[in-house]
C-alpha cells in the first residue's frame, strides 16, 4: 500500500454481516485507476457481496468505501444509493447472473445506459417532444457512442435484435458494452468469463487490456477462470470466507501457500469454518 491518494478507490475495514454470517470481514483494499484488479476466491467467499457493498446494493455493516473522483472529489460510496454510485461516482457493475433488458434490442440496452445524459438534454421530455436541435444532437451523440462500443465488442451486426434471444457469451458482451456506455471510471465485472468458450474468453482478455491501456479505465474483476485472471491482472486480492488471505501480483499469488491451500485443500477449508464458528 503506497500513497493513499494515488488509489482510485479506497476500501477501509469493510465488514458485511447477514445475521450471524460474516460475508466480508474487515477488508481493506486499494484499487488503482487504469489497472485491472482481480478478486478471486472459492464459491461463497464474499466476492459478489463485496461488489454489492461497493455499488450501493448492500449497506455494509461497518467500514467505508471512498471513491477519489477527479471531478467530484472524495465520495463515500457506502452512503450513496445505487443509482448515484453509477451516475456520480462513475462506478458501474455487471452482474454474475446477467441482467439485460431481454425484450429490448442490443442498441436500446446501450441507449438506456445513457439515460441521464439524454434525459437532461431532453429537458424532462419537453425539448424531446418538440424535437429541438439540442436534444437531437444529444440523441445522435448517444447513438454514436453506442455504435462505437457495439463495433468494438463485435455486436454491431446484432444491434437490432432483442437481447433475450442471444447466446450466453453474447449477452455477457452486451452487458459489458452497456456498462461502458455509462462512461465509468471503474467498471466492476462479476465473472464475465463464465460460460464463454476459449475463443470468447481470449477476446475478453484483449478487451480488458484495451479498456485499461487505451481508455484508462479502472477494472475490477471477479473471476474463477485462472487463464483470464493470471494473464490480465495487475493486482489480485484473494478472499476466503470473507477474509482477505493474500494480495499481490499474479506471480506472488500463484506461489502463495495460503492461496493454494484455500483452493486445493477442500477438507482443510471445512476445518477453518468450524474454527471460525467456534
Amino acid at each position, binding site marked *: 500500500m503506497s500513497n493513499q491518494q494515488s488509489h482510485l478507490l479506497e476500501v477501509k475495514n469493510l465488514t458485511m454481516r447477514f445475521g450471524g454470517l460474516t460475508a466480508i470481514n474487515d477488508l481493506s483494499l486499494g484499487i488503482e485507476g487504469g489497472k485491472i484488479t482481480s478478486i478471486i476466491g472459492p464459491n461463497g467467499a464474499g466476492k459478489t457481496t463485496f461488489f454489492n457493498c461497493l455499488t450501493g446494493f448492500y449497506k455494509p455493516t461497518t467500514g467505508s468505501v471512498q471513491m477519489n473522483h477527479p471531478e467530484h472529489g472524495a465520495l463515500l460510496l457506502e452512503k450513496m444509493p445505487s443509482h448515484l454510485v453509477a451516475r456520480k461516482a462513475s462506478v458501474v457493475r455487471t452482474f454474475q447472473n446477467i441482467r439485460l433488458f431481454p*425484450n429490448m*434490442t442490443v442498441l*436500446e440496452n446501450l441507449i438506456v445506459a445513457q439515460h441521464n445524459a439524454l434525459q437532461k438534454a431532453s429537458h424532462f421530455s419537453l425539448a*424531446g417532444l418538440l424535437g429541438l436541435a439540442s436534444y437531437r444532437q444529444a440523441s445522435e451523440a448517444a*447513438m454514436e457512442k453506442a455504435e462505437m462500443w457495439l463495433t468494438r465488442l463485435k455486436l454491431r451486426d446484432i444491434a437490432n435484435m*432483442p437481447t433475450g434471444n442471444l447466446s450466453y457469451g453474447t449477452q455477457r458482451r452486451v452487458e459489458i458494452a452497456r456498462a461502458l456506455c455509462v462512461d465509468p471510471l471503474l467498471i466492476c465485472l462479476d465473472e464475465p468469463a463464465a460460460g464463454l468458450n476459449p475463443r470468447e474468453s481470449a477476446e475478453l482478455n484483449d478487451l480488458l487490456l484495451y479498456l485499461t491501456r487505451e481508455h484508462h479505465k479502472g477494472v475490477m474483476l471477479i473471476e474463477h477462470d485462472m487463464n483470464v485472471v493470471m494473464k490480465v491482472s495487475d493486482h489480485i486480492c484473494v478472499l476466503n470466507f470473507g477474509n482477505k488471505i493474500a494480495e499481490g501480483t499474479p506471480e506472488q499469488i500463484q506461489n502463495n501457500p495460503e492461496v493454494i491451500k484455500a483452493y486445493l485443500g477442500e477438507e482443510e477449508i471445512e476445518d477453518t469454518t468450524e474454527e471460525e464458528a467456534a
Partner: protein
Amino acid sequence: MTTFQARTHTVTLTERLKDATNVALIAILLGIPMIGLHTVDAGGKLMVATRWPWLLAFVATMFFGRLALQFAIDQFKLKRLTRQRTRTLEVATPRPWLKWLGYGLLGFSLVLPIAFSDNRYVVDTATTVLIYVMLGWGLNVVVGLAGLLDLGYVAFYAVGAYSYALLSTQFGWNFWETLPVAGALAALFGILLGWPTLRLRGDYLAIVTLGFGEIIRVILINWTEFSGGPNGIGSIERPSFFGLPFKPDSDDGATFASFFGLEYASEHRVIFLYYLILVLALLTNLFIARLRKLPVGLAWEAVREDEVACKALGMNVTNVKLSAFAIGAMLGGFAGVFFAARQGFISPESFVFSESATILAIVVLGGMGSQFGVVIAASLLVILPELGRDFSEYRMLLFGAAMILIMVWKPGGLISRREPSKVLAGVEK
C-alpha cells in the same frame, strides 16, 4: 432464473395430496356448520338435525375436485411455458399489413359519423369505444410500458370527471379551460398514489392501487357537500363548438345551428362529441408514440424489464416510475373530463372497480404496450356486450367465454410484438 425454476419445478404426488388434504380439512371446518348441521321445523320448534353423509360427500368432492383442478392447472401452465419459450425465440418479422390496417382504421374512424349520420346509436357506441381507447392508452403507459400493475386506474378517470363537473357547475369554467387543470390534478393524484407504492411490485402493488381506487370512490360517495354524494352532480355544462352551444334556436346569442344556417338537430352534438374524443385520442396516441422514443419512454420499458439493472446504470428508478404514474393518470383525467362533458351527469357509480378491470382487460387483451392492440381490444370489449344484448343475462357469460378464448389463443395479447423504438440503420432487424 429462480422464478423460471420455480415454475418448471414439477410438483410431486405427495405434495398434491397434502394440498388436497388441506382443502378437505377446510371443507370439514366450513362444512360442519353449513352442511353437517341444519335446522328443521319440528312442529313450531326449531330443531338441529345432522346430515353427516352429505358432509362426507361434500368433503370428498372438495378433495378430488382440488386434485383435478390442480392437475388441470399444471397441464395448462406447462403448455403455456413451452409456448412462451418458443414465442420469445421466434425472430420478429416486420408486418407492414398492420400499419395499413391502422391507416384503414383511422380513415374509417374519420368518416364514421358521416356514414352513420342518421344512426345516433352507432356514433354513440363509437364514442364510448374511443373513451375506452383513450383510457387504455393511458393505462398502457403504466401497465404495458412501465410494468406497474395498476388496478385503481378508474380513480384518475374520476378525478378528471369531478374536476370538470365541479369547476363548471361552481365556477362556470368551460371544457377547454378545465382540461389542463384536470389533467394536472389527475397527474398529482398519480404521484400521490405512486409515491407510497414505489417499493411494491406485482401483486402487492395491485392490491394497494385497488384500495386507492376504492378510497376515491368511497370519498366521493360520503363527502356529500363536496361531491353530491351518491346523487352525483347533474346539469354539467356540455361542451360548445368554439363558443357556439348546441341548443335549439333562441333569442340569446347564436347557436351552432343558427350560425351555420342549419336546422337544429340533436345529432349535431353527438357527432361533435365523437370528433372531440377522436381528436383527444389521436393526440394521446401521438404523445405516447413520441414519448416512447424519448429517454423517458425507454426508461419506462427498462424499469419493466429489470429494475436492478436500471439502478446499476445510474437511473433514478423512483422518478421513472412516478413519471409513468403521472402521465398515465393525466391521460385518464383527460378522458374523465370528456366523460363528464358528454354525460352531463356523473355519480360515483360510474367509477366502480369493474371499470378499472375493464380498462386493464383492454390493455392485457390488446397486448401489453401495443397501441394498436388497445384499439382492437377496446372495440371488442365495448361492441361484444352490445351485440350480445339479445342474449340478455347470458351476455356477460358469453363475453367472459370470448375473453378466455382469446387469451388461450393469444396469451401475449392480440398484438404481442414489440416495435423497437431505436434502430441502428443499415443493420438487419
